[in-house]
């Protein structure tokens, strides 16, 4: 990874945002983390709409980290929209959430999430989770070329 494309983090909890940034930093992941706070904003960002109208549509994130419980538009709805639009179909989406309710897991995979990870309470474990996420999705995995 030399061009260090961005990673989109869809997360409304500022503590979780800060901790995710910290975990990225502790793992020396060079990709910049773009944070949007709810589902509607995530969709606007990806489709260069609304406040993001000036954004280059071809500058797609290399990975989306998606929380499920979000204000306004929930994570599952974001998944549905992104998977139904050709412009965002190729972007890997990792659901990164608190819930381990079977229904959330099943629905996420039905809507073609690439992975489902429950955020552990133990921060050491979370740092390790982020390390593995980075090495798999940013290094090992071959995505669709921009």
């Amino acid at each position, binding site marked *: 990874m030399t061009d260090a494309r961005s990673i989109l983090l869809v997360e409304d909890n500022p503590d979780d945002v800060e901790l995710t940034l910290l975990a990225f930093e*502790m793992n020396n992941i060079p990709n910049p983390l773009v944070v949007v706070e709810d589902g509607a904003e995530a969709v606007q960002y990806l489709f260069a709409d609304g406040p993001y109208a000036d954004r280059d549509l071809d500058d797609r994130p290399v990975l989306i980290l998606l929380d499920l419980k979000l204000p306004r538009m929930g994570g599952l709805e974001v998944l549905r929209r992104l998977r139904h639009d050709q412009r965002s179909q190729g972007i890997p989406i990792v659901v990164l959430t*608190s819930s381990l309710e079977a229904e959330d897991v099943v629905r996420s995979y039905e809507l073609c999430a690439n992975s489902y990870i429950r955020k552990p309470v133990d921060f050491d474990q979370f740092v390790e989770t982020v390390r593995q996420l980075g090495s798999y999705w940013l290094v090992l995995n071959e995505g669709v070329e921009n």
Partner: protein
Amino acid sequence: MTQIDLDSGLETAYSSEAEEYARAMLNILEDFASEKERLEESQRAVLNILEDFGAEKERLEEVQRAMLNLLEDFDVERSKAEASNLELREAFESLRRAKEAADAANRELQAFSYSVSHDLRAPLRAIDGFSLALVKGYEGDLDAKGKDYLHRVRAATQRMAQLIDDLLKLSRLTRGELNLTWVDLSALARLVTEELQHSQPGRRGVTFCIAEGLVARGDPRLLKVVLDNLLGNAWKFTSKKVEAKIEFGATRMGSRLAYFVRDDGAGFEMTYTQKLFETFHRLHSERDFPGTGVGLSLVLRIVRRHGGEIWAEGEVGRGATFYFTLDTLRPETET
């Protein structure tokens, strides 16, 4: 002579005519008599017929009365049937309402556990994460005591997370349908003991005795949780012994078959046997034997959902035996 002869001739002529008349009259009278007899016979026949008609009419009237009675009975019967139909409909209706209420309560519980699972964990993550960030990023600014406090904060946080997870498990396992099938408990017990040995490969000196051929009807996923907890407890409470024996078997108790898990570990005081199954209640200190106090209340709920009972015998320092029965033919009993 001639006169006489004439006279006698006339006389003769007259008398023969009269005789003829008389005969005719007699004939007519005879005819009348036989006619009368015939008429009388007919009259008798008609009377007979009329009499028969009378009897027939009476019979008919009787039949009619009987039919009216029957109709009346039918009417009574019908209104009875209608009444019991109404009762049945009302019973169905109240059953439907009860089911609706139960479904609503279940949905609410589901929403509640969802919220617990999601919302209660988020602040815990922040507490743990920022404590660690302090320990790692500000090491030089903290003395040993400061670091120890932060460690305690993190330990408490993780314990809280464990409690939340166990509670969620409790609510998840006690809702939803029972999936009944024949379960090989002996095989299940062997699987659980293998998992236990795998979890602590360094631990030696534990002998497992698992009875063969124990098969019961139940939900395999839930019965696995029962054996996970009972055998797991036996494993945990024998951990301070060099040599330990853990048994799984069955024994006849009256008309019932009671399955048991027996160990020769720490045991417990019989006075507290009821407390064993209360959620979050523990008989041993966290320092000696860690746990959240949810396991046995989980087992109790599952056994009850299988129509069974659970009880325990123990002695401090001598071990414990947990018995449970399964009776899936009986409907679910509520606590």
